[in-house]
């Protein structure tokens, strides 16, 4: 099994408060992990630390494979651009993606007919769906998703779960945070409350 992420003795200090300490985690290809923990337990901070966005106050060692996709609370989409343009010129990219692939991804998240609509005119849930459409375009092996189920309806959640599972079956791995208990086969759970300092 290829190892995609390894946390050794990871702790996090915010200001003078120690949020958690001694987190051990190994994520191998094919694994689906959910990070749980009460509000303020540091789920988002841990995910951002893993992605390499925020390393201030982080102790321990984090080894993360470079082929990684991070989706935070904010989708990273421009409200002045259309759905197509947003995916075509997504900030994390740099290489042109074929339009057919983009339209296919938009169809998967249920946005047929909205390809040329400016993002600002969509509802909050639809905008989240545009952000999630990246998952159908991504070639990264490790996905780090912060609260991917927020503002997504029942159909959307089912579709997203399917996609996460498919990614794991194809040799990828997913780490996501969520408050809701998620009933997916083979789900592993890391509870940050157990590591609270």
């Amino acid at each position, binding site marked *: 099994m290829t190892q995609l992420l390894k946390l050794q003795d990871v702790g996090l200090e915010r200001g003078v408060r120690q949020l958690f300490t001694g987190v051990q985690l190994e994520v191998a290809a094919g694994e689906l992990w959910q990070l749980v923990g009460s509000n303020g337990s540091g789920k988002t901070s841990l995910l951002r630390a893993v992605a390499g*966005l925020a390393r201030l106050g982080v102790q321990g060692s984090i080894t993360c494979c470079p082929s990684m996709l991070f989706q*935070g609370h904010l989708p*990273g989409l*421009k409200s002045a*651009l259309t759905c197509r343009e947003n995916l075509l*010129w997504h*900030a*994390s990219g740099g290489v042109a993606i074929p339009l057919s692939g983009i339209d296919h991804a938009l169809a998967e998240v249920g946005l047929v007919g909205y390809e040329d609509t400016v993002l600002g005119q969509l509802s909050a849930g639809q905008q989240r769906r545009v952000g999630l459409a990246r998952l159908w375009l991504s070639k990264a092996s490790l996905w780090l998703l912060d609260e991917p189920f927020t503002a997504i309806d029942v159909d959307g959640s089912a579709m997203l779960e399917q996609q996460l599972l498919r990614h794991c079956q194809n040799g990828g791995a997913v780490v996501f945070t969520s408050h809701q208990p998620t009933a997916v086969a083979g789900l592993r759970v890391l509870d940050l409350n157990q590591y609270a300092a």
Partner: protein
Amino acid sequence: MQPDLLKFLGFQAQRHLRGALRRPGDIVNPLVFFLMVVTLFPLGLGPDPDVLADLAPGIVWVVALLSSLLVSGRLFQSDFEDGTLEQLALAPHPLALSVLAEIASHWLLSGVVLALVSPVFALMLNMPGQAIPVLMASLLLGTLCLSLFGAIGAALTVGLRRGGVLLSLLIIPLTVPVLIFGTSAVREAVLGYDPGSWLALLGALSLVGLVVAPIAAAAGLRISLEA
């Protein structure tokens, strides 16, 4: 530069330009601000054309500096608020390169446009005709410097709630040389001397800015993401 990186630069710039062009108000409003503030000076100083002509280089340049500060402070705001910045920071290419693309497209839509319409303001303030091409050239180079320095301040304050005034405090002292070189060039031209050396200094300053600003702004953005 590797062709790959150049392509990425163009790719990012295209995205910024396309988004900005959808909001023409953001391009026009600073120009209206410029026009309004220029109007305030004759109202405050009196309409005497000779007095105005004497003060015109300084007035136009100070107002250009202020309006440039006003817009460059918002340079990374929307990127920070919608999460684009996180994605740029994680992109496979250096963040400094994305910053450079952003500054360049910002300058095209603010500084270059300002330089192009500046003759109107110069004529309103009774500036002699021979100085107007020099004014345009100095504004073209000077606004590039202002955008570059402004980007550093914008990057350091983007995550702060009270960023607006703070940005001016950080950036105004750094822009002193730009103002001096710019006004001196125009003044020399008004007096009929050769402004070449001042324009060359502005060009040199832009080059320093092109090297320093993307790196410093990228570092600032990473710090803003941490906070």
